[in-house]
């Protein structure tokens, strides 16, 4: 039995003449979707698998499919004769361009067998001379095929073809089965003393040899150390560092990836010609003093270090100079080069050092990438990547990142061990706060923790892009957009479209026992993002212009044209939060509040004038005349009784309509007259409170805010089991709306799972005139047939997206990840639904 071992993620190229049994072999060993055959592709482009004329187009298609599969990281098998060098070369190049390994499996069968097989296939009417020619090509190839660039060429002959089994080799970089926890340690550069101190600070126990030298370490909690490379050079004791790390790696308590310095040191030890600079001289000197066997062991260790590791199910990637997403888990020279040296722009800076390409700035991968290589004063997260090289050897610090807790631990350098070629400067690779079009455009599926994948259609993304880019606040402040909310099922009660009874019934039917009814303030929805200090704003939101927050609308727009007014409002709100002691009690330096900004006219005056007041003005001008003329006609004995009665009713409806909007208008001058009614704490440091805390907590906590600018949110709790409790709340709603209130929002007190609406709005009878028109009360029966399904489904999807953006914010995910669901809410809001719901 012949065992053929191929890389688990690779391109496998089958080689053999027509009739050699490639397709049968492929069918036996691989999934049908993994095998791309030239016959199949010929069929795709010509409807005839044997149409030789279509071969060039067929191979274009084949290469495209293979390339796409490789880009997506799928094992792929090419079933074509591949007896010619040119054909194989193209496939090898294709694999290399996707940084995957490529193996060849040659099926070498005797000519007569192949001819006989083809003779049995009526569709293959080409003569045996074709096979003879292919055979010749193959013979010629076999002598040189090992130079084609295949990782390995497996040649099968005779029975071995039938007996062969395929096994898969995991990539060396693939250590996804290791889940940590990890301590990821930055560039040590021979700073053995600092490494000892750091390990001790991290809780490691060192093992020492007779001479007292540390030769290993273990962590009582079973943590694993991961070194990002550059253990050697520049520092005082590179052999000491190697001894310790080699011991840890050998004992399985540490992993280590290669740094560029290890690479060069190995070359130097091998006697290759390298320039002895950048501290290499010190390592060579120090190693010269070591015994030969240690030197040899160190050389072997360093030579065997690999470019990067994928850890924890692929969620963590460690590489010395970082690694872009397309290279994770891949193997090629350029992957290794990127991992060891980083990507450079080809330019050099004023100190003659290479200018590095800021790959982290464009990084969009889901895996956290931890790396070193470039010394910086302070580690800074950039798109879920972190450089932990804090220049210990240059007199900085030696830093470790604890994973998964993201905690940073560091010890200072004992002294400057080596003068840096350029001063340690803050990284130029900062999160620039600028998003990429690829973060938002096109048809998208946004993964949410509470609502599965949410699809966003391209057309809606386009509409949202326009609003977002022309009007929205800085995306760093825009961490949440509120979801839409559905009304309850339509009330059968005479004169009502909406009534609390249906809302209570809906939640009760989902098994909810306790709901809260919150007054629905008639204003404009507002999200307030507040930081305690400019420093907190910089640390959490990356906003460094000194502002401490914003207040924006449902579409992410600032409320005021004048930034000074926004700043003024933010200042008042921060003061209110400070006065209530919320920073301390919530343990946070920032807070996001869901609010209603009052009065409605503050933001919507233009809309009120254009749409609502205009209707009122026209109605109040037209209807009295109409009544007068109809009355005169009636006085003449004409039969206008019906129209007259209707027109009189319309006149009174128009007056009620006018009162309905006027109630929500108030004088505003600057910030005077502006009030904010917060009703939920969306997120604070480390917590998406919207998803975690019951509404009772939100309302209680917010009740502590006391300020001129704050309006409380009146509310009642309802036990749905109690008819009495329901009746009380209904009476409360009736009184509220009777006094001109918009209505109320009914929410389950505890955040509910799955398909339960997060809240439903029950709007008052008079308020609905603004929505359904002045005369809607005349035709309520027609209006009752309204379709809630789409609105309810939208509400759930947007709610899931809202919680998702908050969770991503609270967990410290990068800007583009927070922006994605925020943008998606805006996109969904442009879906066509009945706007009256």
């Amino acid at each position, binding site marked *: 039995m012949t065992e053929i071992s191929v890389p688990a993620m690779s391109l496998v190229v089958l080689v053999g003449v027509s009739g050699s049994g490639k397709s049968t072999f492929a069918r036996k060993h691989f999934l049908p979707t993994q095998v791309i055959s030239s016959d199949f592709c010929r069929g795709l482009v010509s409807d005839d698998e044997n149409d030789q004329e279509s071969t060039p187009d067929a191979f274009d298609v084949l290469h495209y499919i293979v390339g796409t599969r490789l880009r997506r990281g799928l094992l792929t098998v090419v079933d074509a004769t591949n007896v010619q060098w040119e054909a194989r070369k193209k496939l090898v190049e294709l694999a290399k361009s996707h940084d995957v390994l490529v193996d060849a499996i040659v099926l070498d069968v005797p000519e007569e067998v192949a001819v006989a097989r083809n003779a049995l296939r009526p569709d293959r009417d080409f003569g045996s001379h074709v096979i003879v020619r292919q055979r010749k090509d193959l013979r010629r190839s076999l002598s040189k095929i090992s130079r084609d660039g295949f990782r390995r060429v497996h040649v099968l002959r005779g029975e071995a073809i039938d007996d062969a089994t395929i096994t898969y080799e995991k990539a060396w970089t693939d250590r996804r089965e290791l889940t940590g926890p990890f301590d990821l340690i930055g560039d040590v550069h021979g700073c053995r003393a600092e490494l000892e101190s750091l390990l001790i600070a991290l809780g490691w126990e060192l093992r020492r040899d007779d001479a007292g030298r540390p030769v290993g370490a273990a962590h009582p909690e079973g943590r694993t150390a991961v070194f990002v490379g550059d253990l050697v050079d520049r520092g005082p004791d590179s052999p000491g560092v190697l001894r310790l790390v080699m011991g840890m790696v050998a004992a399985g308590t540490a992993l280590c990836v290669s740094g560029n310095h290890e690479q060069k040191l190995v070359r130097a030890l091998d006697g290759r010609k390298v320039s002895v600079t950048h501290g290499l001289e010190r390592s060579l000197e120090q190693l010269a003093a070591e015994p030969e066997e240690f030197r040899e062991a160190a050389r072997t260790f360093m030579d065997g270090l690999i470019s990067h590791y994928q850890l924890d199910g692929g969620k963590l990637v460690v590489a010395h100079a970082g690694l872009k997403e397309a290279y994770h888990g891949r193997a090629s020279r350029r992957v290794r080069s990127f991992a060891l040296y980083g990507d450079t722009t080809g330019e050099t800076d004023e100190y003659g050092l290479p200018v590095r390409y800021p790959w982290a700035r464009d990084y969009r991968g889901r895996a956290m990438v931890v790396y070193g290589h470039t010394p910086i004063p302070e580690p800074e997260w950039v798109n879920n990547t972190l450089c932990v090289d804090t220049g210990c050897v240059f007199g900085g610090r030696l830093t470790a990142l604890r994973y998964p807790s993201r905690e940073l631990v560091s010890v200072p350098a004992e002294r400057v061990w080596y003068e840096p070629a350029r001063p340690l400067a803050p990284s130029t690779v900062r999160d*620039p706060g*600028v*998003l990429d*079009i*690829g*973060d938002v455009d096109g048809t998208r599926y946004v993964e949410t923790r509470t609502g599965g994948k949410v699809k966003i259609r391209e*057309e*809606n993304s*386009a*509409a*949202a*892009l*326009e*609003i*977002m*880019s*022309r*009007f929205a606040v800085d995306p760093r402040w825009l961490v949440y957009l509120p979801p839409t909310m559905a009304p309850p099922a339509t009330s059968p009660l005479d004169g009502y479209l909406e009534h609390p009874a249906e809302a209570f019934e809906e939640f009760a039917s989902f098994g909810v026992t306790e709901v809260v009814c919150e007054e629905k303030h008639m204003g*404009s929805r507002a999200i307030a993002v507040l930081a305690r200090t400019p420093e907190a704003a910089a640390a959490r939101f990356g906003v460094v212009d000194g502002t401490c927050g914003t207040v924006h*609308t*449902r*579409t992410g*727009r600032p409320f005021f044209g004048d*930034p000074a007014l926004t700043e003024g409002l933010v200042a008042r709100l921060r003061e209110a939060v400070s006065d209530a002691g919320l920073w301390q009690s919530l343990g946070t330096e920032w807070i996001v509040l869901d609010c209603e900004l009052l009065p*409605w006219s503050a*933001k919507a005056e*233009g*809309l009120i004038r254009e*749409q*609502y*007041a*205009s*209707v009122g*003005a*026209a*109605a109040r*001008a037209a209807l009295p*005349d*109409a009544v007068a*003329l109809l009355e005169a*006609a009636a006085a*003449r004995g*004409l039969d206008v009784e019906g129209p007259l009665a209707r027109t009189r009713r319309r006149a009174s*409806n128009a007056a009620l309509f006018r009162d309905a909007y006027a109630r929500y208008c108030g004088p505003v001058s600057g910030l005077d007259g502006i009030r904010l009614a917060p009703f939920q704490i969306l997120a604070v440091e480390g917590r998406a409170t919207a998803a975690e805390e019951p509404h009772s907590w939100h309302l209680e906590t917010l009740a502590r805010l006391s300020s001129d600018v704050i309006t409380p949110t009146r509310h009642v709790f309802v036990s749905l089991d109690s008819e009495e409790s329901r009746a009380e709340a209904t009476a409360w709603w009736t009184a509220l709306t009777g006094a001109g209130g918009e209505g109320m929002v009914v929410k389950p007190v505890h955040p509910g799972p799955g398909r339960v609406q997060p809240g439903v709005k029950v709007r008052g009878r008079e308020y609905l005139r603004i929505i359904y*028109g002045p*005369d*809607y009360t*005349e*035709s309520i*029966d*027609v*209006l009752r047939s309204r379709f809630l399904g789409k609105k309810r489904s939208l509400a759930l999807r947007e709610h899931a997206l809202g919680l998702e953006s908050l969770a991503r914010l609270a967990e410290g995910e990068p800007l583009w990840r927070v922006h994605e669901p925020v943008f998606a809410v805006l996109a969904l*809001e*442009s*879906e*066509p*639904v*009945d*706007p*009256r719901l």
Partner: protein
Amino acid sequence: MVNRERSGSVLLAISTTTRPATDLGFLLHKHPDRVQEFAQSFGVARVFYPEATAERCTAALMLEVDGVRLARSRTSSSSPADFSLGQYVNDRPYAASSMLAVALADVFRTARAGICKARPELAAGPIDLAITIPALPCRGGAELARLLFEPLGWRVEATPIRLDEEFPAWGDSRYVRLALTGSVRLADALNHLYVLLPVLDDAKHYWIAPDEVDKLIRAGEGWLASHPERGRITRRYLGRRRALTGAAFARLAELGDDVEEDLEPPVEEEPIEPSARALPEPGEAGAEVDAEVDVETLAEADGEIAEGADSIGDTGDAGDAADAGDAGDAVKRPLNHLRGEAVIAALAETHARSVIDLGCGSGRLVGELLKNPAFTKVAGVDVSARALALAARRLKLDRMPEARRERLTLFQGALTYTDDRFAGYDAAVLMEVVEHVDPPRLPALERVVFGAARPGVVIVTTPNSEYNVRYEFLDGMRHPDHRFEWTRAEFAAWAERVCGEYGYRVAYRPVGDEDPEVGPPTQMGVFNRD
């Protein structure tokens, strides 16, 4: 019957004092002692006589609008579903709009044709008429009502209606109470109303039927050609347009409590002057209309944008208008033309072969660049889907010859999001774009253009705010969507900072006539990468 949602009452009253006044019934073909109903697509029209004596007779046309049917007819028409609240809560049930005009045309069809077998002499000559419309939407104010009706022999009383008595600061509504009196032939009076009511309303939501030009010509026979405001009347009559923005955009505007028009992107959409060719000039005999002109006119009226020389402009800024309208200087050219030429001249000097117009609007510059084969690759980018649709139409994208089409790329993109598609051009143009970006978002634009796309040349034009004092009627900034306008010093300060940050050098050019004191109307910076 409650299952028909009927609401509102749109009203028009016509009175005469020409004795015997009750002859009005003959003229209108409606008996003064009856109440008559006429079904309309959007409700019911009713004619009745509140008074009918020999001294004075009044016919009232009252329209009860069926709100539900109104909303449905909109969504089911050829236009895309317009899911905005405006279709449910609007003034149509109360205000004298095109619906009243349509009802009037239908109910008084015979009268409008001037036919009256019972009283032919009366129908042929002027009678004393008084017409009252209690709520007439009048965009342009009471003054416009006078300008339109007075030349036709009416005495006009147009009283503005307050928006809301309780909020005096809101001022007047767009409605007036209109009272017309005069000695006018009844058929003419009806035709005046038929044409001028929608003209005064100038509403956005309306559908132009293909035969609208014919209708205008018929109804305007004998008076429109000699009307001093015929240009405006024709333009508005044919220019009533569908909502231009997509439904999705409208939804988002409403969501943010914004008026949709306020958010509409600054894309020029000046309608052309169809009057010049579609209508006979005063004194010209007959009303012959060139069929081809007709089609063109309609396409433009229906399709928002004009292709004529007059329409080429970009954002239609107030400044441009003020400039273009400078009387007395016959050779003075519109600023937007000068700006385009200046940009192209600057591009030519840089020997750029590929150019990307960032914020291309309706594609005027892109069109000019395509005309020059030296530009082998031209791209237009705008964030507004509507602007791109207008550009595709202006550039006749679907009919463009292949060789030219291959040089052009047109796509949606936002200047605050980095975008690989922006890279790879010799030059980028930001013509009248930066001032549409909120100042706090400018650094993002800078990074996207100068930092990420990094073309060899970037050309930026923006208004010179110092020049604004030269615009007589300008109050505030040149366009409502401008977030700022810079003085020359402010522009220079910005440009220097950008240069320092991203490694460019800048040279400044004036665009338009340079004023010795306040400089040119437009300032241009040509940025070259170091």
